[in-house]
């Protein structure tokens, strides 16, 4: 590589093409993340259900996706599922299904540990105030679980963003696929893949920074400032009637 002649003009010329690929990558990542973050709620609830069959089914689903390579999952949906059902799913949609199914499994586990971090008495207090099960979830459990699990959720999403590169193997024209095509045609693998790496990095790195910032902050909670009363007079003492 000592005498390698960098050809950045080539990269510049193919930038529109790469950006087209990036658009597909981002589209796929965002759709996957949004869908998975929604679908993971019922899956996490099923994973904690009182009914054993429901719980086992949810756990089985999660373990299948956690314990098999994502590439196999992708190929299975793209190549194997049509053999089973007779329906061929286009590449982009196969990719979306596989990535969503995968991320949902991991996200559900993050949600579950978030849900379980909310003290049960807080939920029972909601029950005593006649909040419905859905209202308890919506107003008490989910907001706290999300807050507690934000770093985990963000890093899962960063991983997913990077893993979208796998879909190039089933001919989805994402950033990785287009880079590969350009590199193969031009024999300029170094410039092209370096550019691709930089593009992935520029997007993932800020999110990673935010993640570690949140993590640091949650490790050392700031001392809450005492609340300033509107009225500066000494706290109106409540004279206990029965107790002296």
């Amino acid at each position, binding site marked *: 590589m000592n005498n390698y002649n960098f050809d950045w003009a080539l990269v510049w010329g193919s930038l529109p093409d790469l950006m087209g690929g990036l658009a597909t990558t981002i589209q796929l990542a965002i759709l996957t993340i949004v869908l998975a973050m929604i679908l993971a709620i019922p899956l996490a609830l099923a994973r904690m259900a009182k009914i054993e069959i429901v719980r086992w089914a949810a756990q089985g689903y999660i373990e299948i996706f956690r314990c098999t390579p994502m590439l196999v999952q992708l190929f299975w949906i793209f190549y194997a599922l049509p053999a089973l059902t007779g329906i061929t799913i286009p590449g982009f949609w196969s990719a979306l299904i596989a990535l969503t199914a995968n991320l949902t499994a991991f996200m559900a586990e993050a949600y579950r540990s978030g849900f379980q971090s909310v003290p049960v008495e807080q939920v029972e207090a909601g029950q005593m*105030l006649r909040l419905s099960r859905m209202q308890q979830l919506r107003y*008490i459990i989910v907001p*706290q679980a999300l807050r507690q699990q934000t770093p985990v959720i963000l890093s899962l999403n960063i991983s997913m963003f990077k893993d979208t590169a796998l879909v190039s193997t089933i001919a989805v024209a994402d950033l990785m696929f287009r880079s590969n095509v350009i590199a193969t045609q031009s024999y300029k693998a170094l410039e092209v893949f370096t550019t691709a790496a930089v593009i992935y990095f520029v997007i993932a790195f800020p999110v990673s920074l935010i993640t570690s910032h949140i993590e640091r902050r949650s490790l050392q909670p700031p001392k809450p400032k005492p609340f300033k009363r509107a009225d500066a007079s000494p706290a109106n003492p409540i004279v*206990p*009637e029965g*107790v002296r």
Partner: protein
Amino acid sequence: MTATAGQQSTVNICEAQAAGQHHLVSARGLRKTFHENKVLDNVDFDVDSGEVVTIIGRSGSGKSTLLRVIAGLTEPEDGDVCLDGRLVRSKGQRTDEWNAGASLVGMVFQSYTLWPHMNVYDNLTLAPRKVLHMSKSEASDRAAIALKEVGMEEFIKANVSQLSGGQRQRVAIARALMMRPRLILCDEITSALDPPVAAEVLGVLTRLKHEEGLAICLVTHDMAFAAKAADRVVFFSEGVIKVNASPHEAFEECGNAELKSFVDAVRFG
């Protein structure tokens, strides 16, 4: 109060009561077993309107379970519960009247259960807004009143993390008041507090009884409160109510050796 009230009796307890005096809460034949451990063993329990009942007893005797069964947080195997003349539980099962009856009951817990991601105002108004569909202004008005009743009116905009333990419990009482209960169940709500702060919180409850006619059912280890502020003391042991009497009778005249040794143990550590 360990009467073996006939479970087969066809007269429901609400009707039976209608003739005589009318209890706010009337429970008969409550049974609850955890893994063959009889935690409530055929318990009969009444609370009248505006009455302060303290429940005392050793750890594990079933005090919390009794409150939780009345609250509906724990399902008993058997027993009838009547709330303000409504049969809400029959032979252990909730009846159609459950929701109507249960809305009369509020609860405050030992651990701090204010929702920490909301401020005091939102803690108070969430249920009235979402469950009772109260308007915003009505909910605000009621929140101001409820906070005043517990001496916390300046804290309406405070975050939960800015409150001390005693303040949190007072706000938790105010939150329960928002739903206009007739009975508040309190499970060791002062056991994490310093004695003067605990006295302040218990003072709030006593005042609510006098000013609002609220019935209060309080599990406590505070014998001084049980002796002075309660209308009635219930001593619980091994899932059975052993003593059910006025504080004077319970503490001064009672012949129950178990209660005596329990009180001595609490007093002298």
